[in-house]
């Protein structure tokens, strides 16, 4: 039995299957949906089976964090971590609307405790830490909880010598936690630095949309950066850019496709091929064909799992 199979078997025994608590919670009740890309009417079941990619035009509709994770993880291997972490509203922020209410509404709406879901899984047989952001949760903005969960994810991967695969989608930093939020950019970048210095592989998938303090922190530090078709990715939002510069934006501005041309993304990968592509990339990043790596060898047998 090859090592990867052994792993798969072993991990399947050990890990519980996390069910997507809230899949499709946002979709209207109707059985038929209208595609935002081509205006075709699509049967909801067909759309879901196709990972929310329109079978007519390939338009990628939003996915929940759990849908993204389960689409990436080898069957039955995903085990969530830090599942119940919530924010205590560090600034007692009340401008316009109390942050506590905003949080409660987001939890209610999504069934999630926060905007990012992380956990252990196998991806193409490789032990990994997976993370995905859920845009429905206050625009998947990064506050203390997202920063903490992302940092822990990288530290956990480092300790257990796993790869990290992260799918982003975020409006940026979470305003309601002020400077605590801004500092999460540095905190998560520091976590990537520790992880990366250990010679371990990080694959980022930029989903639609990814902006601001999230783009400019951990995901773009990945070894290989993939993006979903049509995903809008940038630092400043297009409206702000247009208003600041008083110029009309070039065609395709900030799309995943233009980011490839501008040298910042390795490939635009349709969602239906994503799991396979990520697995193939990990095949390389976890290969270590050159043996005398002494320190920094990626993805050997994870430590601390035998217990």
């Amino acid at each position, binding site marked *: 039995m090859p090592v990867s199979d052994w792993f798969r078997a072993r991990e399947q025994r050990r890990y519980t299957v996390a069910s997507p608590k809230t899949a499709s919670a946002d979709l209207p009740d109707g059985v038929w949906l209208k595609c935002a890309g081509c205006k075709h009417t699509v049967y909801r079941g067909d759309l879901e089976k196709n990972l929310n990619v329109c079978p007519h035009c390939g338009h990628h509709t939003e996915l929940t964090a759990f849908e993204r994770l389960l689409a990436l993880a080898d069957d039955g291997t995903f085990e969530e971590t830090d599942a119940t972490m919530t924010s205590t*509203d560090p600034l007692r922020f009340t401008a316009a609307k109390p942050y506590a209410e905003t949080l409660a509404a987001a939890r209610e709406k999504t069934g999630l405790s926060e905007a990012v879901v992380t956990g252990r899984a196998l991806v193409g047989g490789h032990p990994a830490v997976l993370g995905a952001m859920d845009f429905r949760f206050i625009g998947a903005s990064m506050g203390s909880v997202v920063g903490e969960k992302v940092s822990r994810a990288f530290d956990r991967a480092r300790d257990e010598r796993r790869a990290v695969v992260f799918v982003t989608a975020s409006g940026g930093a979470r305003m309601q936690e002020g400077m605590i939020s801004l500092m999460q*950019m540095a905190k998560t970048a520091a976590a990537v630095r520790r992880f990366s210095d250990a010679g371990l592989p990080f694959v980022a998938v930029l989903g639609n949309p990814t902006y601001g303090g999230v783009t400019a922190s951990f995901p773009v530090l990945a070894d290989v950066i993939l993006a979903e078709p049509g995903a809008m990715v940038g630092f*400043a939002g297009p409206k702000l850019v247009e208003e600041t510069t008083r110029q009309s934006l070039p065609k395709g501005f900030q799309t995943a496709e233009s980011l490839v041309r501008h040298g910042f993304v390795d490939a635009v990968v349709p969602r239906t091929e994503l799991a396979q592509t990520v697995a193939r990339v990990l095949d390389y990043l976890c290969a270590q064909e050159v043996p005398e790596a002494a320190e920094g060898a990626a993805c050997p047998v994870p430590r601390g799992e035998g217990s």
Partner: protein
Amino acid sequence: MAAVRHVMEFERPIVELERQLEDLKRLDVSAQPELAEEIARLESEIEMLKDALYSALTPWERVQVARHPERPKTQDYVAALFSEVVELRGDRAYGDDEAMFAGFGTLDGVRCVVIGHRKGKNTAENIRRNFGSPHPEGFRKARRAMLLAEKFGLPVVSFLDTAGAYPGIEAEERGQAWAIAECLETLAGLRTPVVVVGIGEGGSGGALAIGFGDRLIMLENAYYSVISPEMASLILFKDPQHAAETASALRLTAADLVELGIADEVVQEPRGGAHRDPALVLAAVEAAVSRALRDLLGVPRDELVTRRQARLAAIGAAFVRE
């Protein structure tokens, strides 16, 4: 005290009273003996008003002080605090961004690498420096300077004064987010001391890219924020007029930052703001930076990085519940 030309919104009542005072003084006091008394009364009122106003600036007023065009700029700090300055230019890839300073300088005998956002002192200079808002090449230049500092064992002193990274088409196309993130990653592991001084505006990711380290010293009226109060107002209230309210809510003042465990130290400013007595402020900052450097130069490099990362890891960790 320097003569100040720019009047901030909240100073208008005082300026109005001062104008009235000038008018009174122009009258013939000998003809109206009660006038002298009136003048004295008004002078004392003005003083009391100033004390009251300036000693309890609201966060939004502090933001305005932080943006005051005559406030000392990075180039003033570089000139006043450092001798033997050598400017370093360029990112070795695309351009030299004049919105970002990088160079060598010697402070109280300690040789340093100095970086900082660089606003202009007049319109022409501001255009050249893009009003202190860097493009990606500015961050890449700063990063190059950080790596030189690490390689040659020099501490880094960084001055923050930017409304933010420039939200332009080309800035986005040349990877603003990537350039900032690379600065963060570099600073996070930089094996040399990093002392950061918030001297004016600390606008979001563009400030953070060179804005954390082993010490964060904030001027009393400098601010540091995840988002500008105006933009927060626009997003939260669909209306930019609630900036005063969001400025308070965002907890962006020097005092707030100390309370949140993000800043270490506040340097007091003269009444009315740093621009009222730049020399005083420059000297106070020099003393604070010098103390910080001498503290940090004694810490072994590995320990320095470990502490810096632990400090970052702690930010926000106290505010999560599992």
